């Protein structure tokens, strides 16, 4: 590439022009790029260097926020499952391999094989997003949302928390529903709901009591949404399904996760931006699948692959920081 784009003087093989023309017109003019790579790849790398800084800012703020925080929730406190995260890591690593194999196939002009690998990459990326969606929905079902008005996470079981629980129980629609629950005969309720009703009654008494102790409010918080014990984030005995919010999903009572608000903000921001990047990559692959992926397209596949590897790279750091720390 370099040799062909350098201006080459032709001094010796054009003698027939005579002496008068020796100093002009014997130069082969060719475009010489500033860097020895195609424009597409150069632009992709420039874009990736801005992306490095974008994700470094996000990851950096997460690390700094996390280690500067007095309390940070343990992964099991916020229903994070390490095996699911590890599975998603594996899926992304596989998709990185398949896109690199698509590029290799395209370079040797095996368009069909290249298409197969790219389709596989697309499927793996979609699987990643599907698992991510499942994870998000399990957070939502436990009342953890990325936006404030829907979120009802309190930092500590203090008086403000107690009054928030009281306020929620005092909402007109709540009063109706609680009365309905109290009037329901035991025969129409499951054992869990019968026990839940007794616990709910006790919680209502405790928050209404004028002389609450901090420990009482901790008991209230534990009854509403207990912090899951380690190893109980999926189907464990304590935690999953143990709180009143799980027994009666319409309750939606405020709950206590120390450090939970900052955790939710950073978790959804980081994984959300990463998921957007994955989705953009999938869109690019979907468009490319309509092409004939022969050697002419190798440059484009390489650029899409560079982007995809970068997305994988971000997840390589996100996974331990989010799930294992």
């Amino acid at each position, binding site marked *: *590439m370099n040799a062909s*784009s350098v201006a080459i003087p*032709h001094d010796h093989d054009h003698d027939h022009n005579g002496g008068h023309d020796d100093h002009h*017109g014997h130069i*082969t*003019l*060719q*475009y010489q*790029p500033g860097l*020895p*790579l*195609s*424009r597409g790849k150069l632009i992709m*790398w420039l874009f990736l*260097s*801005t992306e490095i*800084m974008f994700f*470094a*800012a996000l990851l*950096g703020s997460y690390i*700094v*926020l996390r280690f*500067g*925080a*007095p*309390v940070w929730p343990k992964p099991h406190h916020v229903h994070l499952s390490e095996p699911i995260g*590890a599975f998603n890591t*594996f899926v992304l*690593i*596989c998709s*990185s*391999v398949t896109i*690199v*194999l698509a590029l*290799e196939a395209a*370079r*040797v002009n095996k368009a069909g094989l290249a298409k197969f690998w790219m389709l596989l990459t697309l499927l793996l990326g979609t699987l990643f997003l599907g698992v991510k969606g499942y994870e998000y929905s399990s957070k939502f079902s436990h009342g953890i949302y990325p936006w404030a008005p829907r979120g009802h996470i309190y*930092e500590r*079981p203090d008086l403000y928390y107690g009054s928030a629980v009281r306020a929620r129980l005092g909402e007109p629609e709540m009063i109706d529903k609680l009365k309905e629950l109290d009037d329901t005969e035991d025969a129409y309720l499951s054992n869990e709901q019968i*026990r839940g009703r007794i*616990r709910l009654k*006790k919680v209502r008494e405790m928050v209404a009591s004028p002389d609450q102790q901090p420990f009482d409010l*901790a*008991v209230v918080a*534990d*009854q509403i949404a*207990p912090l899951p014990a380690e190893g109980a984030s999926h189907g464990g005995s*304590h935690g999953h399904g*143990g709180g009143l919010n799980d*027994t009666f999903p319409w309750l939606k009572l405020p709950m206590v996760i*120390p450090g939970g608000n900052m955790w939710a903000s950073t978790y959804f921001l980081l994984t959300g931006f990463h998921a957007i990047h994955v989705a953009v990559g999938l869109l690019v692959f979907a468009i490319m699948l309509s092409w004939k992926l022969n*050697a*002419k397209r*190798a*440059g484009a596949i390489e650029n899409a692959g560079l982007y995809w*590897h970068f997305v*994988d*790279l971000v997840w390589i750091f996100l996974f*331990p920081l989010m799930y*294992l720390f």
Partner: protein
Amino acid sequence: MSDHGPITRPGDLPDHDDSHGEHDAHDHGHGGIGKYLAVFVALCFLTTMSFLTYSSLWPWRDEPQVGWAFMMAVSCTKAMLVVLFFMHVLWEANWKYVLTIPAAMMAIFLCIMLVPDIGMRNRMVSQERALHMARESDVKLLERAAEAAMLEGMPAH
């Protein structure tokens, strides 16, 4: 004038149009499927290594910082493998340093600059914030409440 060479327009790289396959084979002939698969196996192995900190074999269970440092080292190794082999940076010319080193330095500076204002934000806090801030004691309190409920047989499980 007829013996002028072809004048290419700035937009068209001479070797960008039809000789792409040739050029790439010449330029990037360093990959190879065997190498990619070896990197893949290494990446999978390293991912399981991150879980080593969770196993009973891990000797520093009381010092989480050791585990964190280990996991970051594993992540950096994985990142290097992806960048060097999958992104072909190992076989690129020296321009790679121009793009990656300044970006990496900016990224590190950016994180360091966040430390005084954000990382140390709880060294000096207003009374208002101190009142509402979660503390380690809150987690202990919740755990004690859970134990008490367990003893009383109050929860539904």
